[in-house]
Structures are given as C-alpha cells and as structure tokens.
C-alpha cells in the first residue's frame, strides 16, 4: 500500500484550523486516506478526512505522521496531502 511520512509544520499542530483544512482536503480525494503515528499498526490508522480523529491523534508541530491510501490516484492524493501537512497553515 502506498504510504508517505510527513512532518507537521503548522504552529498549532494538527488541530484547530489546520485540522479543518486538512480534513476537508482529505475528504476531497478520490481515495480513502488514513493517518497514523509512525510505528502504529496500519489497522489502527485513523480516517484522515475525520476532523475529530485528527484532533484525537494530537499531533503537534514537528511530529511525524504516516499517510496511507490505496487505489487509483493514491500516489497523487498522498503527495498533495503531504504538501499540505508540511505547510504552516496557521500562517495563512
């Protein structure tokens, strides 16, 4: 299954506004994308399009997360979401 790692760049971490922006973007992808902390089993990965899941993940600025997706367009979806995570969304 295609996967990518990304380092959270937003100052407030992956909650508040950055979580909303990221969840919205994930829900617009043609494939289902999951998010997890590195080392966590893939089965326990959370739905990246769920703002509540993102908030319970509690990823802070500088934390590394793993994104996974499968199917047509998975690679493109992952690449665009990684870019988003590595942007400081609080600055916008």
């Amino acid at each position: 299954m295609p996967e990518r790692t990304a380092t959270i760049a937003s100052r407030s971490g992956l909650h508040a506004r950055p979580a909303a922006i990221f969840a919205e973007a994930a829900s617009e992808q043609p494939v289902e994308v999951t998010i997890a902390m590195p080392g966590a089993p893939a089965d326990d990965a959370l739905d990246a399009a769920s703002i509540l899941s993102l908030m319970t993940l509690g990823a802070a600025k500088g934390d590394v997360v793993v994104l996974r997706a499968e199917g047509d367009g998975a690679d493109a979806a992952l690449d665009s979401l990684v870019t988003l995570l590595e942007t400081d969304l609080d600055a916008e």
Partner: protein
Amino acid sequence: MQNFQGVGVSPGRVIGTIRQMPKPVSEPPSGEQLAASTTAEDAVVGLKAAAQSVHDELKARADKASGDGKAVLEATALMAKDTMLLKSATKLINNNGSSAERAIWEAGASVSEMLHNLGGYMAERATDVLDVRARIVAELRGVPAPGIPASDTPFILVAEDLAPADTATLDPAIVTALVTSGGGPQSHTAIIARSLGLPAVVAARGVDEIPDGAEVFVDGAAGSLSLEPSEEQRAAALAWVENSATLAVFDGKGTTADGHLVPLLANVGGAKDAAAAAALGAQGVGLFRTEFCFLERDTEPTVLEQAAAYRGVFDAFPGKKVVLRTLDAGADKPLPFLTDATEPNPALGVRGYRTDFTTPGVLERQLEAIAIAADESEAEVWVMAPMISTPAEAARFASLCGAAGIKTPGVMVEVPSAALTSASVLRHVAFASLGTNDLTQYAMAADRQLGPLAELNTPWQPAVLRLVQLTVAGSAEEGNGKPVGVCGEAAADPALAVVLVGLGVSTLSMTARSLAAVGTVLKTVTLEQAQELARLALSAPDALDAKAWVRAKLPILEELGL
C-alpha cells in the same frame, strides 16, 4: 393589550416580531430502540441525511461569517459529517438496535469525553461536538435547531437566558432587542445587550409562551414587553430611532449643568474595544479587564506577550488615563493554570487578587509587563487589584506595584469590608474604584446570575448606595483627596450615574455605548441637585422606590426613552 413586566437592563424602544430561542434539545431516553416500522438501514440513511443537512446549514453560515467565528463554524460543520462520529453511531444502530437519535447522542458523548480528557484546545472543542450532536437530534426530530435562530429579517429574540457563547452568533443588525424570562440585571444577557447597545428586558416571566411572529413593543428602560402595540407605543418607537441617533454621540466632556467635571471613561477588554471607545469619545479607560489576554489559554502568557497586548489598549488613549485591573480570575472566569474549579463556593473563593495567595508570581509578572507597556506608551497608566478585602492587602499590592515601577496603584472596592474600611485601605494606595456588580452581589448575598434574585441584585439597593457613600467618606477621612470612581454597570444607568455623582464619586466608567446617554442626562442637573437625588435614594426603603423616586425627578429620562 397584554403586558409582561421584567427588569429593564438596556434602554431603547422598539417594535418588532418575536422569535423564540428554541429550548435546549432533550436527551433521547437511554436504551431508546428503533421504531418497529424502521429498519436499521433506513435509520442509518436518515441519520446521514440529517448530518448532511446540519453540515450544509453550518457551512452556509460559515461562508457568511468572518474571522474567528468563521473558523469555528467551519470546523463545527466538518464535525457534523465526521466519519468517526457517524461510524460509531451507525455501529450502535446496527448492533444494538438503538434509535438514530440515541445512537448519535451516545456517539457524541463518547467523542466529546475523549476530547475533554485530552485537555487544552481539544477540551474546548468538546462542547462543539455536543452542539453538533444536539443539532443532528433536532434535525431528526424535525424541531428547530438550538441556538439563536438563523434569519435574514430582523426580529426580537426571546429566550430563557443567553450564554456568553451566544454572543458569537448574535448579529445586532438582525436581532433588534433581547427579552429573557430568566437571568438578572447582571446576567450575561444584560452585559451582552449593553455592549451591543440593544434594548433588553430580563426576568420577564411568561414571555416564553408568546408565539413566534407575534408583534410586540419592547421598552428596555421601563423593562416591559407589550403585545399588540398601541399607537402611542408606535410613536414612541419612532421617536427612539431619532433619540438613539443623538444618544450615539458623546461630546467627550462629562460635566454637570454647573460645570462640575466628572470624566466619563470606558470599560474595555482589549485593543479593539479601546479603539472603539476612543472613537465614541471616552475620556479615558476606567476599567481595562486584562483577563481577556489570558482566557482560552492553558498556560500563562509571557511577559512580552502581555506587554504587547496592554500596549494595544494604552496606545488608543495617548495622554489620557487608562486604569488597568490586574488579573481577575476565578468564579465565573476560571483559568486552568490559576483557579481551582472544584471549590464549593467560587464567588467566595480564591479569585481576583486572592489567586496570588495560591499561585504567587503570576501577579508580579503581570505588573512587570504593565510597567514595560506603560513605559513605551503615552497613556497615564493606573493599576488596580480586584477583590481587595483588607488594608493589609492594599499595602502589599502597593508595594508590589512600587517594586515593578508602577506609580499609581489602586484597589477595586467590591468586597463590603473594603468599603467599610476605605479610609485605612486608601492610606496605602492612590485611588479606589467601586465595582458595583460584585459589591451588590456581596452586599446582598445574591448570586449575579440568578433570575429569581434579580430584585435583590441591583445597585439601586439603598444598602449598596450606602457602601458607595462610605467609601467616598473614607477618602475624605484619609485626607489626601484620593479619587473614588465607579466602574461597574451601575455607571451606565443614567439615573444611577447622577446619584453616584451626588454621592461624591469622581469618575464614571461604563460600556462605551452608554457614554452619550449618561453624558446627556448629567448635563441637565447641577451638583447640588445630584446631591439632593443621592439623599433621596439613600432614604428610600428599597431599590424599587429608590429608582422610582429618582427617575420621577429626572423627566428627561422619560422624554429620551432612557
């Protein structure tokens, strides 16, 4: 013509149609099952449709909103169709045969608890999940969504009481007046109404039975609501439109008819308020509430962060007086790093200046930040501590101020003991400011937020006026002419403002929107007349008479609809 009588808390006379604020959504009974006629599949489809429409409604409101409100609404909209929430509800429907209402209720509760346990920012979002859950249940039941009704046409809002959170969704261009069946004169509804300049009546029993769409006349000064407005009332509402235009402008000079100067100052909570107050002609700031720099924080802001926030307010009043109140946490303003939420009696607990007993250091760092900001600005900065009870506390606060390089330390007089010993208290500091909201609450032993105690909880109580008089007398006894001002909501009531001036109060500080009304009325009386009215109020047997007697001698109030 049916009349409902309550307590007027913000003047204005308007005619409009009413909208009832929907009752809070009740909990679906525990163990509620799917109706026999409904399959689990249908229930899930229904739930998803309800969630989608709640999402769409919140999203549409977010699109129209701006700033912080927009961000919160956008995040809340996403929660409505969140897969984590819906999957957990779906599981309850499929596995337990729960009704859709009960399933989303329980799913929301567990997600909310999870966020709550994470603490900090997440904990604050826990209530958003509960709000979304209530909206979905309302949608499933086909009843109106909780909260202030969304509308494109103006209406008069009738509610049991408003919460601070409702302010965010209250659009003063749409809501033309507020009437509540509960709440008191110091309730959040009253404070919200005054800050927005909306006519408001609180504690008007029976108003929650008035049907939506009924045309009513509201008089925020008289504290009444009438069904089927008369021709006279229609004329009064029209006259108010004109009066309110003149009452919107303060000429920046508070004085009695005979030239006794009473500077009229503003109560502000931050730089934005301060700029607005300066534009409305405020002669300075009589109460700068610094909690707003601290609220919604899990940890104490740094000295430099604080200094920057204070500077924003100071800069709006170059060359003028800005009276800053040090952190007033506790009771209705808890702060996670400072106050204990489990106290049995928070209003009588560790709050205001007293947080320095349990968490020393925060106050000293705040004073350091104030001194930095004051040095960099041109405002004349005075600093006072809230909830001072004894001369010894005043002395200690003054020495902390001195050590930080603050020249003008003062105290708030809110605890009756401080009013009774004001001569001794004032020996240690340069000024006192009466916080009439808390002074009333403590003198009358009546919780500010409780509707049933509204009649006790008014600064018109002769006992409260006596405490004001004693505080002023204490300053005279002290002998150095140290000023005693008022910075509670009492100063915003034009009739009471005249009484306070008559009692010898030297400055009045209020929500900026009340400056013009207070200034206009003050100009119509001489100092001697104000003193006469003060004696009259003190001699009244109760608050209702005190107010009625004074108002009868100030015909301009009725003329202007104040």
